[in-house]
C-alpha cells in the first residue's frame, strides 16, 4: 500500500461513477472498503453481504474488472497504486449501485435440472454412499459451490448468450449426475443438452480461473459434454 488514503471509484447504476477517499488500514477487505463508504460517506449506497467469511456467496462484485468475493479479498492484493474500481457483478441486471438481481442466475440452476431428484421416502433406510467410488469423487469435487455467481460474471459465453445456463448451474448438474442419491439422470442430460446447455461452452476457463473456492466448473462442463455425447450416440438423442 502506497498511501494511507485509498482512491475508491464506485460504478453506480445508470452509468454514474462516484469517487471516495477511504482510510486504509491493515487486513482491510474490499467489503470493508465498501462498508466504510456506506457508513461514513454515502448512506444511500446499496450493496449486499451477509456472512463476511466466504460462506454465503452474497458479496461478489467486480473489482478492477475481475469478479471477486469481496469479503475474502484483501484490498492490498487488488489495488492499482492506491486506486481501486468496484462495480456490480457482470452479466446480471443491476438493481441499485452494487446490488444485482440474482434471479436469472438461480432460475438457470432450476433450468439445468440442478435440483435433487429423489425417489426414496423418509421411511426408507438411509442409503450407504461409497465415498471412494469414482463417481462420488467427481461429485465431491464440485459440491463446495457457494452460489456467489463469480463464475457466471466471469463467463464471456454468458455475456454473449442470454440463454446459456452458465458454469455454476452446469457444475451442479454434473455433481448430481454423479450422485448415487440422485435419480434424475435422464432429466439432467435432457436439460443440459438443449439450446442453452453445456455445448455452448467454449472452454475459455474464466470460471475455473476465478472461482473463489478453487472449484473447476470448466472440467465439470466437459464431463457433461462427454455424457451427453455418449447418450446421443447410444440413444440418438
Amino acid at each position, binding site marked *: 500500500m502506497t498511501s494511507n488514503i485509498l482512491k475508491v471509484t464506485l*460504478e453506480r447504476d445508470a*452509468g454514474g*461513477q462516484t469517487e471516495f477517499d477511504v482510510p486504509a488500514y491493515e487486513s482491510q477487505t474490499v467489503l470493508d472498503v465498501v462498508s466504510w463508504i456506506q457508513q461514513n460517506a454515502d448512506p444511500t449506497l446499496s450493496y449486499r453481504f451477509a456472512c463476511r467469511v466466504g460462506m454465503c456467496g452474497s458479496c461478489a462484485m*467486480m473489482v*478492477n*474488472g*475481475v*469478479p471477486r468475493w469481496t469479503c475474502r479479498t484483501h484490498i492490498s492484493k487488488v489495488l492499482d497504486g492506491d486506486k481501486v*474500481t468496484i*462495480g*456490480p457483478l*457482470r*452479466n446480471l441486471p*443491476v438493481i441499485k449501485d452494487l446490488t444485482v438481481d440474482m434471479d436469472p442466475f438461480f432460475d438457470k440452476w432450476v433450468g439445468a435440472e440442478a435440483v435433487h431428484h429423489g425417489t426414496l421416502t423418509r421411511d426408507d433406510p438411509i442409503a450407504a454412499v461409497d465415498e471412494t467410488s469414482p463417481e462420488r469423487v467427481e461429485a465431491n469435487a464440485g459440491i463446495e459451490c457457494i452460489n456467489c455467481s463469480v463464475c457466471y460474471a*466471469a463467463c*464471456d459465453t454468458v*455475456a454473449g448468450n442470454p440463454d446459456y445456463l452458465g458454469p455454476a448451474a452446469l457444475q451442479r448438474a454434473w455433481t448430481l449426475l454423479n450422485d448415487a442419491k440422485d435419480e434424475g439422470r435422464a432429466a439432467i442430460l435432457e436439460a443440459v443438452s438443449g439450446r442453452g446447455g453445456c455445448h455452448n461452452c*467454449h*472452454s*475459455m*476457463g*474464466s470460471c*475455473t*480461473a*476465478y472461482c473463489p473456492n478453487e472449484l473447476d466448473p*470448466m472440467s465439470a462442463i*466437459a*464431463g457433461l*459434454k*462427454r455424457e451427453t*455425447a455418449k447418450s446421443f450416440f447410444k440413444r440418438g438423442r
Partner: protein
Amino acid sequence: MRAARGITSRAHPLWLAYILHRLSGLGLALFLPFHFWVLALATTDPARLDGFLTLTEAGAVKLAEFGLVFLLAVHMFGGLRLMALEFLPWTPSQKTLAAGATALSFCVAMLFLLKAI
C-alpha cells in the same frame, strides 16, 4: 455494466489459448478461398499461376508463408488441446505429461525433418 467493458479477467492462459485458436481459424478461413483460387489457376490459366509461383521467391511472401504455417500449427494444436481438454477425463498432471511428450516428440521429428531437408 461498465465494469464489464473494462473486464480484465480474460488475462489468463486458458482464455488466451481460446482466442488464439479462434483467430487462427478465422485467418485460415479467410486464406483458404484465395488458396483454392490460386490452385484452380493450374487448369484455367497456367501462365498466371507461374506468375504467382515466382512471387513466392519474394521475402515478404516467404514471411507470409511462415505466418500461414504458424496459423496452421496453432490451429491444429489448439484443436487437439480442446479435444484433450473436453474428451479425456484425465488429471491435470497426466495432461501436462501428455502435452510435454507430444511437444518433445514434435521437436525431435522436426529436427530430423530439417536435417533431411
